[in-house]
């Protein structure tokens, strides 16, 4: 049993977590979707992560990570679009804005949604980027239609 002071420190560290993770065996999927080159439909891995989290949320697929692998830092998320979206998911999930005070909890929520979402997204992978972009746009349109 850790001493109380250690526990407090550990909680504090978790609350200030900066790293975000994906499930180890799905790392390659995120890499594929977010390669920083001409072949990928999404600009970078963190974009694939955010997109997968949004899709996971929209499909109610929250899956805890079996074995996690570090893929990036909180600071890599864009303050205008990514951060408010991830925060919104966490607030919507918990119904408590105070979740924003606990980055660790916030990240766990979105990591788990990204983990469930990436499987849905992956079904829309096509042979070339153009076709994949088109498939993703149809996925977006389908989800939007469900929400309307």
């Amino acid at each position, binding site marked *: 049993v850790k001493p109380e002071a250690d526990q407090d420190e550990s909680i504090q560290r978790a609350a200030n977590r900066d790293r975000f993770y994906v499930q180890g065996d799905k790392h390659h999927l995120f890499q594929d979707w977010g390669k920083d080159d001409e072949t990928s439909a999404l600009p970078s891995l963190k974009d694939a992560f*955010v997109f997968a989290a*949004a899709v996971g949320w929209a499909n109610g697929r929250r899956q805890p990570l079996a074995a996690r692998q570090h893929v990036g830092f909180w600071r890599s998320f864009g303050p205008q679009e990514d*951060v408010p979206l991830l*925060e919104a*998911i966490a607030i919507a999930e918990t119904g408590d804005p*105070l979740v924003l005070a606990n980055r660790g909890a916030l990240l766990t929520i979105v990591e788990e949604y990204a983990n469930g979402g990436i499987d849905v997204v992956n079904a829309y992978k096509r042979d070339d980027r153009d076709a994949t972009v088109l498939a993703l746009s149809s996925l977006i349109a389908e989800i939007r239609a469900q929400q309307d």
Partner: protein
Amino acid sequence: VILRRLRLRDFRQFRGEHEVVFASGSDRNVTVLTGVNGAGKTGLFYALNWALYGEAETLPGSLVNKAAAQEPTPRSWVEVAFVHDGSEFIARRELGVTPSGYEREISFTLSRLDSGGRVKEIQDPSAYVNVILPKDARRYFFFDGERIDELSRPGHEQEVREAVRSVLKLKVLERTSQHLDDAAKDYQKALRQQGQLDDEQRGLIDAAEELDRSIRAREDELAELRQRITKLEHQVQGARAKLDRLVEIREIQAERREVEALAERLRADFDDASETLREAVGRGAAVVAASALERARAVLEEKRAAGEIPTGIRQQLIEDLLRERICICGRPLDEPATEALTARHGHSVSSDVAESVLNTASDIRLLQARAADTSVVLERGVARRAELREDMTDNDRRLEDISERLRGDFTEDVAQLEESRRYLEDRLRDSLVEAKVGEREMGELRAQLAKTRAQLGSLESRSVEGERAKRRWELATASAEAARVVLTHFSADMRGRIEDATDEIFKMFVWKEKQFLAVRVTEDYKLEVDDRFGTATLAGLSAGERQVLSLAFIAGMSKVTGEEAPIVIDTPFGRLSEMPVTSIVTELPKIAKQLVLFVTDREMDDEARSLIEPRIGREYSLEFDDSVGETSIEATR
């Protein structure tokens, strides 16, 4: 000749005896024999030819029916009854098979039936038939509809000349002229040999002979020159057609450049649209998580309304106000105000978290607005992309079409082609001038010859014998000259009349009358069609159009001869489209004295059928029995 009846036995796929009676009424002069391919139409068509001329040259296989050939003494025959000059004739040809299996003609008889019903057998039947309907003219009355376009192919003047000579019996006149010419020469020789000539006479005969030789040599030269002219005319026409085509190709290539430029623009637009779409998809998470944004915003609003989230008043300020017990307006804080501030202070979260929550609420509102924009961009992007993809496909199709139009085309330098055309035209002009000069010189030579002969005629002979020889020579020379003049005038007259008749009939048949100005049969017997700009356009006619032109020419010859002759056509409309067929079935029965058509069931559509219907006097159906490989002839009218 008007055909009455065809009877046959064991000929080709017709086992046993069969009979076809031909319509020959003035109103109903058409006989139609219908059969599917392979039913025996062509066999029946050739039975007519074979009975009259003993020829069935293009028929493959044997003439004797295969089943009949197995009999101990196989014997086939075909009998054609026809009327000529008011008398009825029956031509009958029989065929047997030798023990070694070869087919052998057994007999050919031609009988004339007089009005009293007496039968008289004609001696030398082949020669007689040949006089009635010359063998070489026959193919212009009995012909395969799909093969007659040869007549109007460029470079087939010889065929046309032969057709005119055969059908109009010019050969008889030519032979007469030649015969008289030879006689005149013989008498000229006799005149010289009778030995009573003085020097002047001998000199004149020598001069006449020399002139005659010169004229003949010049005639040969002119004939050769005319052939060269015809060839050059074709070459010039060909070069012009190529040049026209090159101009057309240039236009097509200009069009291709335009279409290629458009393809490039469309590709760039498509790439732009794809990039815009990709960017929008990259921002699509906000659209996908719209419900999270909405829910988070509702939570934040709710907490704010419950006072659980500060409205933006900083914690430090509240603490300062409570400690100073002074309101923000400067008045002292009363009890209720102090309680309210204390409550707010108690509910509030740490200042960092409060700021973060405040910022998040504002950011979510902005993100929702951006998500709405992204949705619109996505929707338009997908539509635009699809639209551009469709335009690109259409454009690709245009490029493919252009490529198809250019495929197989020659690549030739225009300048070189133009050079060649000019060279050919120069040569043609020179040849035409040369021909004119030659004709003038020939006229002069003929005049000189006539003068020499007249001089010779005016000289008195020394003896009665000499005088007689001179008279005979004079008569033969004058007759030969007269025959030559008659032949020349008659040929020219007939050519003119055939030209008029062909022109008239072609315009009746053809379905693009306005496109064609006139049909000409040129001096050297070339069939030519001028288009509406007056340009010779024979080389540009389609095979169907050439077939119609040939048919018009044959019908024109038939009309000009004024002879009663049937027109028998195997597969008349196989290659023609609907329009000329309707014109031909309407007009041809009026032109021909008798019309016999061997047609497939598909050659005439309902309209053509209804048009020819009132002219059909007899109709037969050739029924092929596949199980035994034999055809029977069923009269259907």
